[in-house]
């Protein structure tokens, strides 16, 4: 199968859906002149009306998408780095999330809000966060967070076709990474996790680029006789509880590796779901471990930054510790 980059895969999904449905349009501060770069290609194909360059006004762009969706369009808004999305937090959390419910289902809001996230590129505190946990507690939003080009394309297509506001989080570390993506059309449904590696001894839940980290750590540990199962939820809302609990039910051990903060990050919710599920809880033989960003703003200087973000070493240590703590 051909291999393309994660960024290409996302773009292809948008392109295909724009061809397929004339109500789909794109807006953002990143739209380049026709022909230049990725969005420039879109602009060339679909014209200025459907690929709209906006001022640097994330809040209003996000609200404009709501109104346009209410008027029958299907907007895709690029907020770029997720810290910029905080400027739009009100529009997304108070307006987009509530619209369908508050008005008694009179209208639906088919909107995709794209955001990139993650540290590791010396972006400092205002360009390196992984902010999805802040939206996770807001009912009415769906949240996708793919880890491969294949999933990225399939989830983006599902997100565009979904009739709800979907936050599409793209791991900044993955943009240039490549992977197999079929030429023919396919979808990855929202709400379906995937076991990226089968294992019996411990479940490692990983998101975005942490999946690769987890797979590498799992390979390393295989030689120590530890078979880690790597589970990628792929969407945080809806969340595939069944897959999570099945895996933990089998392995009895759980480590979550995630780039959002340790406190109240995505890992907290994963841990909570396991601990409140009677079967999964009963199976759990060791304390849960979270390998996340330390609870600090992301520092600029690379040695500092490396110190606070998850690493293969930290993950490996957490897996070993957890397995050792579990009475066989």
């Amino acid at each position, binding site marked *: 199968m051909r291999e393309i980059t994660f960024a290409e895969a996302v773009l292809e999904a948008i392109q295909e859906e724009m061809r397929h449905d004339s109500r789909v*349009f794109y807006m953002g501060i990143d739209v380049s002149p026709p022909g230049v770069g990725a969005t420039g290609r879109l602009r060339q194909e679909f014209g200025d*009306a*459907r690929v*709209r360059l*906006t*001022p640097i*006004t994330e*809040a*209003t*762009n*996000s*609200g*404009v*998408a*709501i*109104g*346009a*969706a*209410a*008027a*029958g*369009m299907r*907007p895709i808004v690029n907020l770029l780095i997720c810290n910029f999305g905080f400027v739009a937090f*009100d*529009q997304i959390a*108070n*307006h987009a999330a509530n*619209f*369908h*419910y*508050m*008005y*008694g*289902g*009179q*209208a*639906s*809001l*088919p909107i995709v809000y794209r955001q990139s996230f993650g540290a590791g590129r010396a972006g400092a505190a205002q360009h390196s966060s992984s902010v999805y946990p802040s939206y996770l507690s807001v*009912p*009415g939003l*769906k949240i996708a967070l793919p880890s491969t080009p294949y999933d990225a394309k399939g989830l983006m297509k599902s997100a565009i076709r*979904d*009739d*709800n506001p979907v936050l599409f989080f793209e791991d900044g570390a993955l943009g240039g990474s490549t992977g197999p993506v079929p030429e023919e059309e396919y979808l990855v449904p929202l709400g379906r996790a995937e076991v990226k590696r089968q294992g019996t001894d411990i479940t490692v839940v990983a998101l975005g680029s942490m999946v690769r980290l987890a797979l590498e750590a799992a390979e390393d540990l295989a030689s120590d006789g530890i078979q880690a199962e790597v589970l990628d939820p792929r969407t945080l809302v*809806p969340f595939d*509880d069944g897959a999570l609990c099945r895996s933990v039910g089998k392995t009895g051990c759980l480590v979550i590796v995630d780039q959002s903060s340790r406190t109240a990050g995505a890992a907290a919710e994963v841990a909570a779901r396991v601990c409140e599920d009677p079967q999964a809880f009963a199976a759990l033989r060791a304390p849960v471990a979270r390998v996340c960003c330390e609870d600090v703003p992301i520092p600029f200087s690379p040695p500092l930054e490396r110190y606070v973000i998850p690493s293969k070493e930290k993950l490996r240590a957490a897996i070993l510790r957890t397995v050792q703590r579990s009475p066989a």
Partner: protein
Amino acid sequence: MAPSLFCYNWGVCARTIDSLCKRGMLYLEASAALRRCRIDFSTAELQQVLRTMLLIRLFEERLVTEVQAGNIPGMLHLAVGQEAAAAGVCAALKPEDYVVTTHRGHGHVLARGAEPWRVMAEIFGRSGGTCGGRGGSMHVADFSVGVICADAIVGGCLPIATGAALGAKMRGEGRVTACFFGDGASNQGPFHESLNLASLWALPIVYVCENNLYGASSPARETLSVQDVAVRAVGYGIAGEVVDGNDVMAVAEAAARAVEKARSGQGPTLLECKTYRFRSHMEGRTPASDPYRPEAEVAAWRERCPIDLLQGRLLAQGAVSRQELEQMRAQVATEVEEAARKALESDYPSPADALLHVYAGEGPPE
């Protein structure tokens, strides 16, 4: 680049309002500018507009009774005294146009022709309400009459309205969006961002600022750095206009101009209606005569009741008789009575339905 036309149409009448507003008061008799409008409206139209204002007034006065009777949960923001802005602007719209409103939106949705009983049922939290009781007084959207948003985050509705205008433009439907908001909202960031965008994209939208001189208990003179919100149009290269918001004919005329402009592709207008609410910011919370508003100011504005103004003019013109007016009022009163009865008969939604409609196209969340 948007057309950088700027027509800051500030007539004699508006100027008078302005200078009086400066002193926190407004006294105004019918002026030349007011009389000028007459010619543009047929008697039938004027009667229709009057009827709309009466409906809003009696509907909201009924809500006062109902809130005292314990039938209205939550917060209730009335627009008694501000009916001319709702009726005047909506008179200039076509049925297919969009309206976006705020926490103070009953008048707007009624002026659009929503069924009064369904609006009231919404305010009572009943299943027959326009939103099935999920929205309440602050969220009386009714998509069947084009009111696609009733938003209670101050300033939050402007981007949404702007988006509706974009959607309509992209679909080539010729629809215009009217976006209502307050003087308070005009200081919020989304106001600025939205007007900039609407100008750039020449969107078919009319931004209607109902400047009632207060945002909750805050006087505009302490929170708004300019006398007129409309002057801010300069900063976006769009048209700005101030009208006497209690003169429904002036509002309708200005709105018609702005709507026409929007529909013909000439972009947005910022239309400021100087008006006043006769009651408190919110029912119940503060006494009806708020401590922060000088009594004389309230009295002066009450003198300028938009309904009385229009009735007086129609009578003076001989366009209606006292008897006809009384008949109209009686009809509207019956309509409101009927609405209240029907609304009260509507059931509360069944509790477990609370889990429905979180996501479109799905049942309750597992």
